[in-house]
């Protein structure tokens, strides 16, 4: 892979991140419109809890390997 492709890859990653951030902002904005600040707090906490739940399942499996 030449420098051109490498740079384009990096740009693509940045664009993808920007898209994700925009989507997240829309989620936050919608929650605010519907339920105010509490709506945002709940929405973000739910998303983070999903990470946490999956994390806990994997960690439990790894702990069993010890």
């Amino acid at each position: 892979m030449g420098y051109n492709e490498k740079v384009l890859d990096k740009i693509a990653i940045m664009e993808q991140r920007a898209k994700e951030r925009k989507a997240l902002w829309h989620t936050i904005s919608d929650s605010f419109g519907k339920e105010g600040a509490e709506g945002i707090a709940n929405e973000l906490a739910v998303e983070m809890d999903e990470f946490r739940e999956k994390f806990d399942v994997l960690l439990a499996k790894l702990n069993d390997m010890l």
Partner: protein
Amino acid sequence: MFHLTRVRIRNFRGFTDEQELKFDQPVVLLFGGNHHGKSSTLNAVEWCLFGENCVGRKTGIRERIGWEIPNRYVSGGSVVVEVEFKGPSGNYIITRELRGTGRRASGNITVQLPDGTKLQGEDAERQIYTLYHSSFQDFMTTVYQHQEAIRATLTQEPRDRNDAIDRLLGLSEYRELVRGIIDAKIENIYKAMGSDFEGFRQLAQQSIYIYDKEAKEKKEKAIAEGVEEETITEQEALHRTKDIGEAVISFAQDLGVSDLQITMPQSFGEVAPFREDVKSKIDYVWLSSPDMVKQTALERKQRELGSLIGEYQDAKTAEAGAQTGRDEFVQLHGDEATLVKTAKAQQENITEVEDQIRKSNAKANLVREAVQYLEEVVSDIDRRRCPLCGADAPQLLNQLKNEWEEKIKVEISDLELQRNEHQTKLRHFDTLKGQLEDLEGKLAKARSSLEECIKKVAAALQREIGKHDDPLALLNTQLQKITSELESRKKALEKKGEKRIAIFDQLAKLRTIDEILSLERKRAIVERIWDTREFRELDKLRDKASQFMEDVEAIKSSLAAAAREEAETKIIAAGTSLDKYFCRIANHPTIRGLALEVIEDPRTGLNSYNIKSNDGLDPTPILSQGDLNCLALSLFFGLAEVTAGTQPFAFLMLDDPTQSLWSEMKGQLVSVLEEITERYELVISTPDAEFKNLLMTNITKNKDVYDFLGWTKNNGPQIARNA
């Protein structure tokens, strides 16, 4: 620009019956005491334009949380607010209605255009925005100076004042959005994940250390016990199982078991089950061999005879004790025949004495009746004669009395004493007889137990036991024989047992090797845990969570930056006016100029405002409540002034602007308002009579006054127009 010309209100907050107020003068004053409906009138205009947008936490106004639209004392009936604006092309009438309360509430909005066209619902909302291009935040910042905005600014607490200034600048939404993100506390969850991950990493390292240490210790011990280090491998362990298997077969054959089957392990994983299998089979072969069976039987017999010896000795002792007790009793009190005979003699004595008592009683009755007859029935003359024969017997009564007292009474008493003595003796003999029967019973029972025991001995020894045999001696003799046989057998078994011990020793070594290799294998698994699919997924998940955190943080930063930029823009735009109005209204002796500066609160990312005087110092320590009131008003007037060119509304609404102002400040405020009337119409609500008088005297434009005279639950505000 749009002029406010009329408002009609029914059932909205403090209002009940429908009331209409006209705004057809440049300055309209709503004057009256607190809670008389003045603020409800201004709120009605705002609600009519912005509906739900001016309700709840999102407004940034604390009082608006749980704000009630319908009048709580009116049951049924819809809320109606109608506002009429005069625009460049004619009059626009906006009517907002609300039916019901809570979740069942339903609303409707109508906009009537100058040509009479009526728009409803979303079309009406769009039309309002098209006309005014104004959000609730814009309206709150530049048209309607809220009472709460000043009240909130009058705090010396920086955080609350920042909040209030954000509100004055129309930035509450930014603040609420950032607050929502902060309240999610996702960084706590992320930190907990990081902490758990670190805990797991440490635990894994600790496990490696422990497995390694235990494996080394066990290896050293195994080598000390004769295991060669190079044999501690899976392959060598499998070889070792072959040797053990052969040794077990040979051991079984020595004990007469020729058909023993052992499953040999094919891989190292089968070594542990092999060990358990071999161990149980060795035990089985050992315990079921003829020698062991015989030895077990002899040991059982040995225990049985030992127990019988104890039992026989106890029975013998009990029988001897019972015999001695019975014999001693007989020697002391006689045997049963003697006791029966003695008792019989006593009974005869009792019978004899009782006969004598009966006879004496017959005579005694006669004498007692005669005495009674002579004393109670017969006259004194007749008492001197015998009542039976009539012969003279002058001493008859005395003689009879003497006989009763001296002879009969003593005789009967003596006889009764004798009878009692005989009865006591009879009872004593009966008691002795009973005691003897008990002793005889115990003796019989002891003899029976002894006989039963002798029968057991006979059964145990498998022979008859005659009267002349000594069971104890027979038992001891047999026990000695068995003990001797057991001794000789044990010596013979010890030799065979040596093979068994050797196999167990091999098994123990195999077990140690198995444990060492298992520990090494576990260590290797933990060492490779970082390469597992689960760990890679976990790592990926942490990256995603981290990215999510970064995205949220970036959005929060963007919000904070946008809020700051907007604040800066507005402050720069309104800065000169702010300074001008503050200096004029506050007329502070030392603060001759004032500027606002916005910076980022490093902890929350929210806007933080510094107030600076023209000498560059922080004036807040010397700012009074009145000064802060002036600051809030100056900011509002400043923003209204800079937006005057683009402002769609031709009026300002001020709600209780003089909360903490003193007289001089009020005068200055009126002077500023006089200038503002050149650009805007004013609707001013105040309970302040001094302020009202200043306005009425110094404002040169036409004025109209609505006096809010009172308020009742049933009728709402009592309003009188006082032009």
